[in-house]
C-alpha cells in the first residue's frame, strides 16, 4: 500500500498563476446533480456491501427511487428558476431505465458526466481491463442517448483504484471529480493526456450534509451561503470554483427544497458569478493557459 496518492504536486495557494474566467467573472459556480440508479438486487463486491440490509433493502431502495419519481422535478425547477444548468453526475444505466429524465436534462442544455454504470457497482477488485470496459460503456451509452461526448468523471459511489486516473485520461476524459484537495482546478499526473481535477465538494454535497453530518435543511442553505460568500471574496485576486453536488432523492424532498432554492437564488444574484458547467470550466482552464501555467508552477514548487 502506498503512503501518497502521487497524483498531484503540492502547490500552495500564495503565489499561484492567476486564473481568469470568461467575461471577467470572479467565481465559477457549478451544480452537479447526481442522478443515480441503485439496483434492487445488486451482486456483492467483496470490498463493499451495497445495502445495509440483505437484498432487497426496500426502505433504502425506495428512498433512492424517490429521486427518480418525484425529487428530480423539484430540484430541476429550483435550478431553472435560479438560472443554473446542471452537470449531471450520471449512473449511465439510468439512460436505459428513465430516458424521460435524461431528455428533460438534455433539453435544458445540461451536461452529462459519468458516475459509473450503477451506484451499486464498484470498481474495487477490478482489473484495469474491466475498468476500461466500464469507461467504454459509459462513453457509448451517454453518446447514444444524448449525443454528448463525455468530458467528466466521478467514480461510482466514490470507488477508485490507484490506476483509475490513468485509464480516464487514456480514454479522453478531461476532468475528474474524485479528489477534494483544492478550490481551483489542478493538473493530475497521469501516464498520458491532460487530466484535471475539478473542484467538487464533499462538504457541500447534500448526501454528506444530510446523511453524515445530520444537518437540518435550513442549516444546509446557510452552509451554502457561507461557503459562497467566502469563495466569492477569495476570488478577488484569482478565479476559484464552487461546486454544489446534489441528490434529487435528498434535496428534492418537500421539506428541503425551498430552503435550498433560496440559497442558489442568492448566489445567482451576484454579478461576479459565472454559472457554468464542469465541461465549460475545464475548457476555460485550458483556453486561458491556466493548465500549462499551473503545471509549470507545480514542477518548480518547493
Amino acid at each position: 500500500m502506498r503512503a501518497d496518492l502521487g497524483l498531484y504536486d503540492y502547490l500552495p495557494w500564495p503565489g499561484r498563476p492567476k486564473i481568469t474566467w470568461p467575461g471577467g467573472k470572479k467565481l465559477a459556480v457549478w451544480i452537479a446533480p447526481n442522478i443515480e440508479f441503485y439496483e434492487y438486487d445488486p451482486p456483492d463486491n467483496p470490498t463493499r456491501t451495497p445495502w445495509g440490509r440483505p437484498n432487497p433493502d426496500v426502505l433504502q431502495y425506495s428512498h433512492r427511487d424517490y429521486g427518480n419519481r418525484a425529487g428530480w422535478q423539484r430540484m430541476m425547477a429550483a435550478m431553472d428558476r435560479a438560472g443554473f444548468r446542471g452537470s449531471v453526475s450520471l449512473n449511465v444505466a439510468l439512460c436505459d431505465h428513465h430516458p424521460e429524465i435524461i431528455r428533460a436534462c438534455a433539453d435544458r442544455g445540461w451536461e452529462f458526466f459519468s458516475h459509473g454504470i450503477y451506484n451499486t457497482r464498484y470498481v474495487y477488485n477490478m482489473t484495469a481491463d474491466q475498468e476500461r470496459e466500464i469507461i467504454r460503456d459509459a462513453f457509448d451509452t451517454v453518446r447514444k442517448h444524448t449525443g454528448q461526448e463525455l468530458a467528466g468523471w466521478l467514480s461510482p459511489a466514490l470507488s477508485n483504484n490507484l490506476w483509475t486516473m490513468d485509464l480516464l485520461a487514456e480514454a479522453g476524459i478531461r476532468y475528474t471529480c474524485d479528489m477534494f484537495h483544492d478550490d481551483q482546478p489542478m493538473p493530475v499526473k497521469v501516464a498520458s493526456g491532460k487530466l484535471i481535477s475539478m473542484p467538487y465538494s464533499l462538504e457541500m454535497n447534500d448526501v454528506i450534509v444530510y446523511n453524515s453530518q445530520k444537518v437540518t435543511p435550513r442549516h444546509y442553505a446557510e452552509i451554502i451561503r457561507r461557503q459562497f460568500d467566502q469563495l466569492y471574496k477569495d476570488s478577488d485576486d484569482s478565479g476559484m470554483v464552487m461546486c454544489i453536488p446534489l441528490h434529487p432523492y435528498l434535496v428534492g424532498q418537500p421539506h428541503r427544497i425551498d430552503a435550498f432554492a433560496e440559497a442558489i437564488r442568492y448566489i445567482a444574484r451576484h454579478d461576479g458569478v459565472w454559472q457554468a458547467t464542469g465541461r465549460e470550466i475545464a475548457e476555460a482552464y485550458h483556453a486561458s493557459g491556466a493548465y500549462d501555467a499551473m503545471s509549470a508552477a507545480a514542477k518548480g514548487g518547493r
Partner: protein
Amino acid sequence: MPMPDSYLDYPARRYGMDHDRYDWSDMFARAPIRWPEDARVALSILTHVQHFPLNMPAKPFKAPGALSMPYPDFRYFTNRDYGNRLGVFRILKLLAEKGLTTSFAINGCIAQRYPAVIDAVVAGGHELVAHGLDMGRVHHSGLSEAEETGLIADTLRLLRDASGQPVTGWLSPGRAQGFHTPDRLAQQGVEWCLDWANDDLPYEMRTDHGPLLAMPLAYETDDRVVAMEYFHSEPDWVQQVKDRFDVLWRESADHGGRVMSLPLHSWVSGMPYRVEYLREVLDYMLARDGVWAAPAGTIARAFRAQG
C-alpha cells in the same frame, strides 16, 4: 482477487424499474388526484405502537429503535415500554382534542400484552394497521415461506380479533421486506402497505395475489428519525414538518392532491416534553384550507375509487 467478468453483466438494465413489482411513473406527470371534500392535501397521521423484546436477535439486522445495550437492556426496554404505558395515551388525548381519526401501526403482540391499548385506539375511532408481530421479528429474504406466512397470519389474527376491525393495512417492523413479502401480504387479505418510501402519492404494486397499494409514509420527517438518527431539536422537527406540508400544499394547486404523512412513535412524540410540539404541528396544518385528515385506509380507498 479480481472480480469475475459476470460482475459486468446487468440482467435488469432496461426501460423502467429493475424489478417487476411496480412501474416507474413521474409523480408530476400523472393525472391529478381529487380528494374528498375537494381537499388539496390528505393528511395521514400514523402512530407506531411497538414492543421491543428484551431478547431481540441481532441477525440479520435489528429494526431501528432496537435495544442496543448489553443484555439485559433495562435502559431501552423500559424507555420503549413507556410509549405503551403513557405515551400512546398522551397522543390519543391530543388527537381527541383535535377531533382527528387516524391510524395506529401496532405490533401484533400488543393485542396480547396490552389489550387496553387496542381498546383505547378503537374507542377513539382510529384505524389499526398491522405492524408485524413484534420489533424483534423482522421480515427478510432469509425467512422461509412458512415462517413469513406464519408471522403475517399471527399478526393479522391477533389484531383483527382484538379490534373487530378488518385490518387491511400493513407496515413492516423497520419497513423491511423480503423479495416475497408483498405477495404473502396480499395472499392474506392485506390491501395496502406503508413500507416503500418513493412517492408522495399512492401507487399500485403487483403481487402474485393481485394488486397491493403502496401508501406514502414520510421517512426523513418521522419523529424517531429526526430525534434519534439526526439528533435534531424538537423545534427543528416542527420546522421540517411545516416546510414539507407547505410544499405539498402548494404543489396541489398545479398537480392535484398530495398526501402529507406524519409518522409518530408513542415512545417519541408521546414524551411529556415533546407532545406540545406535536400540537404545534397539528394546529399549523389544520388551520390551512383544503386539508382532509383521515386514516390511511380511508385515503387508500379514496385513491382507488378514482380508478
